[in-house]
């Protein structure tokens, strides 16, 4: 056991690295491709795009998702848009500028070479999506429209109303279904990956559970791709879909894949607040609302008057007060923390006290209701549908919520994990976003990985490593062991026969994570969480109740397995957050802040990717470090005052 990190960054000037790498990579000839098989777990932007592109090249692809159709992957829910350095607006955008903004936005905790490539490839993504028929917003002249988004001074965001993710995913899904029709991709919906098969140190397959029949199956291949999305549901309440999970990457971690920066999780400032204990998920309200809405809370703690009865001079427009130059448009991490601070002071609004007002009355007075309706009509409707309140008359209530995870499985420049033959794409890898992701960059990264990086780098792996020369049979001991292990976990879950549903434990986990490893963290809290989490895990395995059996459609069993993995991941996140004794991006350690509460980085000691290696149940995982070198963008202090 044990791995060494080698990011395999090509040498030479940054703008030539990807070309150079592509030239040096080995190719599989078209006639030989059909001799290789690739498993892609996930059908979101990363997995869907990857599976379709690999199929087009002629590889035999098997693609898996837990939903009933690949079209329902959570990428579908992305609202705002996708970035690309097209410079169609002639406002001075360039590949270098997108690269620069992304590295800076990530607070200097990402790998320069990867980010540069991402910015380069962004150009091809838009072309590809347009050609597929993605109905992007257009100007009257018929050209593509753009909007601006947080963290950038140029308009480089392409969008399809408030449903950009949906339209991009349908584009990838259509390409995927075309390959399904041609027999190049075999689709396995309602199949959940529960383990990775590693033979002679290489990833050679997966074990899945058929979610309708409960049957465990081993699927073997020459390479495996995980594109299984983010783990934001570790907080229980998040903007992720109910099924989003960490199971695939967590079980790969336990098979030897390094887990990078698990504590880098993004909290989005504008979500609809929790309304009660029964709450099952949180809904994002697009960041764009902050362009016209003003955020405030009462000056007095415990002021329970309705908002319209609180006079102007008794309101605290705290973002405008603290960050006069950015005001209500301060970046996500900064705004989220400010909201938490005022609520902690007892000035939060709404029944739970965990909310702040986002008030449009000034904008309505200034611009008229019509204009506001045109700009945000659909969002206002969605808000009213969920809360029953009319935001034209009563200010919206918003609160931060878990939204995105920058951490994930570590990958090298070719998107390969520390297990040869295991590739990781999209939100599931530790990605190009460092310690904080900018808006509209996740869709870009997922599609870059899937359409334009994996198809080359997997070919290179197959042509240089020749996994096909060591065929693996379904009877191999490694396959049997993986199947037995999965069956064992399932049996244990069913046998506990305790008293609480898996959701009960998931909620408890969420409370601990939100309290101690959420928007702000400190040593004492993280240590406390590291005591509470093992206790909760122990209780889970003694008290969870899963009715029914394995050989049937059993949603409680599915959920129980995911919660078991989240419980373990939570511990690793807290450990990572404790170990990273600095503040950077979304990771805010209270010990490291300026007098007015801004994050203080420690480049001397923490300019690295923290990569954790699993060492066995109950053992402390081993920390490896990939040093980060900044040759093109010099680390500076982010300031939004």
């Amino acid at each position, binding site marked *: 056991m044990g791995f060494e990190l080698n990011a395999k960054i090509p040498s030479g000037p940054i703008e030539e690295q990807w070309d150079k790498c592509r030239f040096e990579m080995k190719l599989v000839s078209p006639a030989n491709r059909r001799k290789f098989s690739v498993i892609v777990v996930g059908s979101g932007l990363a997995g869907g795009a990857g599976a379709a592109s690999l199929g087009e090249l002629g590889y035999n692809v098997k693609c898996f998702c837990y*939903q*009933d*159709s*690949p*079209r*329902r992957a*959570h990428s*579908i*829910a992305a609202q705002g848009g996708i970035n690309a350095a*097209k410079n*169609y607006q002639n406002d001075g955008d360039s590949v270098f500028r997108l690269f620069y903004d992304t590295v800076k936005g990530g607070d200097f905790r990402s790998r320069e070479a990867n980010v540069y490539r991402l910015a380069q490839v962004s150009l*091809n993504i838009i*072309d*590809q999506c*347009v*050609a*597929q*028929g993605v*109905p*992007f917003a*257009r*100007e009257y002249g*018929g*050209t*593509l429209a753009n909007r601006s988004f947080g963290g950038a001074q140029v308009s480089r965001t392409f969008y*399809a109303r408030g*449903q950009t993710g*949906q*339209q991009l995913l349908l584009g990838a*899904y*259509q*390409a995927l*279904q*075309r390959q*399904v*029709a041609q027999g190049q991709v075999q689709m396995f*919906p309602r199949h959940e990956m529960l383990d990775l098969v590693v033979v002679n140190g290489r990833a050679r397959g997966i074990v899945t559970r058929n979610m309708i029949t409960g049957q465990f199956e081993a699927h073997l291949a020459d390479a495996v791709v995980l594109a299984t999305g983010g783990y934001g549901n570790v907080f229980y309440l998040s903007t992720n*879909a*109910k099924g989003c999970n960490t199971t695939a990457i967590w079980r790969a971690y336990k098979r030897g894949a390094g887990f990078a920066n698990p504590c880098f999780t993004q909290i989005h400032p504008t979500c609809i607040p929790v309304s*009660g204990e*029964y*709450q*099952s*998920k949180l*809904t994002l309200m697009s960041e764009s609302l902050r362009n016209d809405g003003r955020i405030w809370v009462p000056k007095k703690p415990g002021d329970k008057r309705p908002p319209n009865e609180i006079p102007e001079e008794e309101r605290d427009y705290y973002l405008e007060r603290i960050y006069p130059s950015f005001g209500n448009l301060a970046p996500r991490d900064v705004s989220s923390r400010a909201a938490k601070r005022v609520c902690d002071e007892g000035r939060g609004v709404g029944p739970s006290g965990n909310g702040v007002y986002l008030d449009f009355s000034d904008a309505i007075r200034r611009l008229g209701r019509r204009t506001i309706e045109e700009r945000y009509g659909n969002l206002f409707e*969605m808000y009213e*549908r*969920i809360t*029953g309140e009319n935001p034209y008359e009563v200010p919206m209530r918003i609160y931060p919520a878990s939204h995105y995870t920058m951490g994930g499985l570590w990958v090298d420049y070719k998107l390969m994990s520390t297990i040869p033959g295991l590739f990781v794409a999209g939100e599931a890898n530790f990605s190009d976003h460092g310690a904080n992701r900018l808006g509209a960059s996740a869709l870009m990264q997922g599609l870059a990985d899937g359409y334009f990086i994996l198809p080359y780098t997997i070919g290179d792996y197959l042509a240089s490593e020749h996994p096909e020369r060591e065929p693996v049979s379904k009877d191999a001991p490694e396959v049997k062991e993986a199947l037995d292990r999965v069956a064992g976990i399932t049996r244990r879950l069913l046998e506990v*026969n305790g*008293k609480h*549903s898996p*959701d009960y434990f998931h909620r408890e986990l969420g409370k601990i994570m939100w309290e101690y490893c959420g928007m702000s963290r400190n040593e004492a809290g993280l240590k406390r969480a590291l005591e509470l989490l093992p206790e909760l895990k122990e209780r889970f395995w003694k008290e969870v*109740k*899963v*009715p029914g059996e394995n050989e*049937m*459609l059993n*949603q*409680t069993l599915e959920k129980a397995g995911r919660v078991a993995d989240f419980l373990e991941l939570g511990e690793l996140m807290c450990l990572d957050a404790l170990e990273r004794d600095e503040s950077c991006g979304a990771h805010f350690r209270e010990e490291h802040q300026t007098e007015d509460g801004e994050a203080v980085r420690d480049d001397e000691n923490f300019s690295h990717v923290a990569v954790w290696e699993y060492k066995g149940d109950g053992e402390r995982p081993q920390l490896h470090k990939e040093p980060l070198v900044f040759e093109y963008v010099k680390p500076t202090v982010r300031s939004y005052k």
Partner: protein
Amino acid sequence: MRIILHIWRQKDANSPGKMVRYEVPDVNEHMSFLEMLDVLNERLIEQGEDPVTFDHDCREGICGACGFVINGIPHGPQPSTTVCQLHMRHFKDGDELYLEPWRAKAFPVIKDLMVDRSAFDRIISAGGFISVPTGSAPDGNAIPVPKEKADLAMDAAQCIGCGACVAACPNASAMLFTGAKISHLALLPQGQPERRDRALKMVAQMNAEAFGACTNIAECEAVCPKDIKIENIARMFRDFISASVLKRAG
């Protein structure tokens, strides 16, 4: 408030099903409909009973996973709203609600309120795409698209594939779904080269899947949570008929 539910329970595809009565005594008006079912399910789990199975994922009205019939109406009484976005404030204390899965031959029940909608995926596979392999695209702005066309295409492309249209139709027709995809691509310049072929193949697949025909009842439009218009069916017919004629003419 107290809500009485009669829910279709069916163990698996091959077992007979029946309506079972449940009571949820402590429903909060701010709950979503699915959150109310979560509360019921949690109680069933703790009692060791099999919870009610239903499909759901995003709970934001966009993934299209959720959907069942409430008192005869797919996705329930609130217009333009998926069942995951339907909230309990639209019901009142003591309401009695009947929940059933989509009923259509082409959507066999898998369990309880969950059905198999893979027929939709096969319709897309038959031709609901533009054949443009990765890497072969021209510059994005090389293909101008008039704004009105782009907007119309987007209206059609908003379909979430939930299947409510089929469930609402007395003929269990999938023409709104198929028409929406055909329109989306036919309205765009990129979709022209395969336009005829696409209409022929998708319609053929739709017919092969045991969906019924359209008799202009427009129930589909009435229940569609994304306001997809039946004009899309008209566009589909136009493309299908002209493609058929041209094909016969050789």
